[in-house]
């Protein structure tokens, strides 16, 4: 969504600095770049080639989780769901990650002094950490609601709490409030200037509905099946008020007003 000049895209063999295993489902890869990473915008993503894996032909899109300009690295938070992510989970320090980055348009950063809510579901929290960090740096008051099925899906809350107040909700109530994110008490009093969200489609749609009712701007990051990630295959489209747009280059972040969600 952002209109700032975006950093140049490149294909690079990034060095893996660390593979931090969070639990059996999630891990965080920190990778080092040979080029400046500070201009990466929250909400942008990378496309990773999974080497040494028989059944992954296309690259895998993964959000940029956090950026560390001082050591010129960035992090990726990944959930193991299939052969590609399974292979990535086994990578170790010193190995290379064949990556195209940074891709897509990121979130619009709110102005200093505003108060915003970030709503993440499952691994959809990934693009929100760097967003929270940037907003916090910009003097924005950040509230973060992290949702998941159960305890095992609520991860990295300490990282988020560096940049704002963290709320948790789980479907089974094993941690935080019980229920859907939209049922969380923080959602009952919608005095935010902006809502940012990323997670499963039904969750984002419910959040967008609530935001719409309260006439709050809402930006969501979509996940679509991508072949190229650079806007040329036209596979990753989503219907918008301007017709089919590519999630990889016109998004992944969209203002929900633009999406044909009721």
């Amino acid at each position: 969504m952002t209109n700032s000049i975006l950093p140049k895209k490149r294909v690079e063999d990034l060095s893996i600095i660390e593979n931090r295993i969070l639990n059996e489902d999630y891990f965080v890869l920190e990778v080092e770049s040979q080029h400046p990473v500070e201009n990466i915008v929250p909400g942008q993503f990378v496309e990773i080639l999974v080497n040494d894996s028989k059944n992954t032909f296309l690259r895998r899109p993964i959000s940029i989780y956090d950026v560390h300009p001082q050591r010129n690295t960035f992090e990726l938070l990944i959930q193991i769901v299939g052969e590609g992510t399974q292979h990535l989970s086994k990578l170790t320090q010193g190995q290379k990650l064949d990556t195209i980055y940074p891709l897509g348009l990121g979130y619009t950063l709110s102005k200093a002094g505003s108060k915003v809510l970030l709503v993440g579901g499952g691994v959809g929290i990934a693009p929100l950490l760097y967003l929270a960090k940037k907003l916090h740096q910009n003097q924005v008051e950040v509230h973060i609601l992290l949702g998941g099925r159960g305890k095992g899906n609520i991860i990295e809350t300490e990282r988020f709490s560096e940049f704002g107040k963290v709320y948790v909700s789980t479907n089974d109530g094993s941690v935080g409030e019980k229920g859907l994110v939209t049922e969380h008490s923080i959602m009952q009093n919608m005095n935010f200037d902006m809502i940012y969200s990323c997670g499963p489609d039904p969750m984002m749609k419910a959040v967008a509905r609530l935001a719409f009712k309260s006439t709050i701007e809402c930006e969501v990051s979509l996940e679509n099946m991508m072949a190229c990630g650079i806007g040329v295959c036209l596979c990753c489209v989503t219907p918008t008020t301007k017709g089919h747009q590519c999630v990889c280059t016109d998004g992944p972040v969209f203002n929900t007003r633009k999406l044909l969600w009721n």
Partner: protein
Amino acid sequence: MNLKVKIGNLELKNPVMTASGTFGYGPEFEDFIDINRLGGILVKGTTLNHREGNAYPRMAETPSGMLNAVGLQNKGVDVFCKDIYPKIKHYDTSIWVNVNGSTIEEYIETAERINELEHIPAIELNISCPNVKEGGMAFGVSCPSAVAVTNAVRKVYKKTMVVKLSPNVTNIAEIAKAVEAVGADGVSLINTMLAMAINAETRRPVLSTITGGLSGPAVKPIALRMVWQVAQAVKIPVVGMGGIMNAADAIEFLLAGATAVQVGTANFIDPTVTLKILDGIEEYMHRHGIKDIYELIGGLKLN
């Protein structure tokens, strides 16, 4: 070392081109490669009118390949001429437009508009798109209809015209000969193969359109066979494609009889792949002491 090849009246600086629908219009790759080094680029399939394309999902990953069902999404030829052409006409490479239509009239009108663009020296007449309900592949799977479109467009399009053939046929050489007879300056092949993916867990087709077009290395052996058969059958140049991922693949197509090659799906895996292929061909020629690319073209050795 000579890398130049001729197709119709047109000379390409080398035989490495990009395949339509996999390279956008060119600017999308400016961050990655120097586009002016390419032999040519094929812009996205263009139709007379704006097309929204098919509904999402349009893509499925398959063993060593992918299915797509984009359905010729594009803004129409007028937007191309007005908004896109000015941004790419300065490229120092051969820019071809991939021309499509639901009816012969649409093909004609689109080709007429493109004919007026000074810096577009050629069109690729796509009679083989498997992802549209009307026209598309229907034209490319029988000789009479392939001849009808080619003949009609030939009358209005004065520059180099290459006809893109469908692999979903019993005898592709026959169709190549038929379009050659009515004035095609070359044929390009293969377009994608009609195919399907099913999600066993949901028991649903993966694509919104049920079937789609298969591309990538999975189809390479079929494409290579078809290029070989067509090159034996026609005198006009053949542009070969289908699963080319590296220089060795490209050289195989040249040996089978292709005068130039197009790189498609590989651009998604590595946006710099076209130049790696070009460098690889040069390295191969050097290593084998080949002075002229024409020594490779059709150079398959049989005992």
